[in-house]
């Protein structure tokens, strides 16, 4: 999946300028950047939901929605309003072709596995409108897993989650990727420490352009990060072997 010389805009306001990016299978690629830098627009363009101003998106976005659904699953930043659907209904809904009334046996199996990966099996029969925010995000991610696609595009899956819920979700995502080397994911995160802990590759977006791209260690210790976020404090975690980034000092 890749975008070449991609430019996006909302009306006359440019969001992404002449950006080129390729996402590789087998990798958890994390997209970071300040609010409004174009992360969601880029994700939507890769998902075929935002028409480019210029440039090309290669891969699933070139296909019709009916065919695209077999290539990529997309988790929007704003989740559907919580209806009184059960978790398993939400996960199964859309896990199969959209003209199927009842899911196939394979789909049910995929849905079961997705719920297991995210620790949601015991909540399968709970109504979505009775779940906590974190549980609902995990249910929505399980719906993406159940789609059975090789690619995942996740827009802020950890938004509003506590440390534990975020870790459960990222752990499930990591396990999902490891189950098949052909799978790849592009995930928008705001928590740079989650990025340091879980990403295989980190892409820093600033003003609609890629400022840094590489392994998380390199990107998170680059000066480009401070150009985007301002002054930061960084140090290495004494027990775990990864970088810890603290927010800008006022």
């Amino acid at each position: 999946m890749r975008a070449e010389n991609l430019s996006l805009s909302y009306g006359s306001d440019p969001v992404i300028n002449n950006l080129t990016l390729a996402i590789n299978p087998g990798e958890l690629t994390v997209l970071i950047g300040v609010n409004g830098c174009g992360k969601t627009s880029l994700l939507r363009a890769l998902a075929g939901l935002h028409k480019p101003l210029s440039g090309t998106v290669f891969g699933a976005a070139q296909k019709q929605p009916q065919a695209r659904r077999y290539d990529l699953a997309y988790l929007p930043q704003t989740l559907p309003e919580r209806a009184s659907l059960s978790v398993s209904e939400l996960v199964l809904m859309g896990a199969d072709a959209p003209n199927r009334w009842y899911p196939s046996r394979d789909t049910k199996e995929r849905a079961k596995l997705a719920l297991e990966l995210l620790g949601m099996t015991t909540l399968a029969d709970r109504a979505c409108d009775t779940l906590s925010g974190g549980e609902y995000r995990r249910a929505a991610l399980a719906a993406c897993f159940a789609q059975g696609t090789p690619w995942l595009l996740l827009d802020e899956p950890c938004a509003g989650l506590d440390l534990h819920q975020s870790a459960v979700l990222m752990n499930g995502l990591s396990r999902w990727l490891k189950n098949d080397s052909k799978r790849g994911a592009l995930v928008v995160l705001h928590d740079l420490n989650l990025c340091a802990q879980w990403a295989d590759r980190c892409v820093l977006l600033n003003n609609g352009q890629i400022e840094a791209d590489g392994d998380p260690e390199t990107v998170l210790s680059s000066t480009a990060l401070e150009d985007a976020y301002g002054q930061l404090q960084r140090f290495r975690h004494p027990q775990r072997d990864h970088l810890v980034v603290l927010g800008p000092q006022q």
Partner: protein
Amino acid sequence: MKGISGIIGLIILGSVAQLWIGPNGFGWPADSFIAWQLRVPRLLLALGAGAGLAGCGLLLQVLLRNPLASPYTLGVGSASALGASVVMVAIPSASIGFGAWVGALLATALVLLLRRRAGLDNEALVLCGIAIALCASAGVLLLHYLADRATSSAMLRWTMGGLSSVGIWDGLTGVIPTVIGSLWLLWILPQLNLLQLGEDWAQSRGVAVEPLKASILVVVALWTGTLVAQAGPISFIGLIAPHMARRQFGYDLRRCAPATLGLGAGLLTCCDALARVVMAPAELPVGVLTALLGGPAFVALLLAKR
């Protein structure tokens, strides 16, 4: 199971009441003309119009993601009243139903055109519908002002809705569009299920959202227009039946939609039977009764939800 038997019971109760209730009491009419040319067509029209209005209400609630949407949200009801009024005032020899049908279609064509040209989102579509309804209502008022007293009275009576029908064909005009519309609704249910979770959600799961939305608007216009042409703008059924069904059967439309159709048919059939007895031997316009009962019932439903 309890919910399904309730809906079936409601339909049976309404149907029996419709067929057996007459101006001279309760009983199967001795005259076969009354039975087969008056009561059976009226029952068919009540079943078809009730299920149809409920189905259209559900479709628009899902399309607009607005629980307050009804078949008339996009101005179809007022536009059809304007169409019918124009015919009554200007072309008395023409069919009132045809005028109403043309009015409904023109309103939807206008909504579709505005949506396509201006790229309107759901909220703007609703506002656009309100604007069309206001303009059409103003047109009806103007025609009331211009018309003589008898025509004005006929126009007013038409807007109250009614299921009086003569001949089996009148009944079938309610049933045929509803059978076709319901089959289409059942066909697209899995896609509607995804659409009610959001357009991005649906599109990334294989739904061609824009063609689906356009087809819903066209189907609702044809379906509602045909029913309103025959039965007049009957209110509340299209709003309340989807809410009642959702409350009993949940948000999964594979269960909720068939229940909505059944509830709509049962509610309108019962309301029409009641409209015939409540002021007997006179007949209360069914549209008045659905509004009278529907308003408090809707509030009760909302309070019960809390």
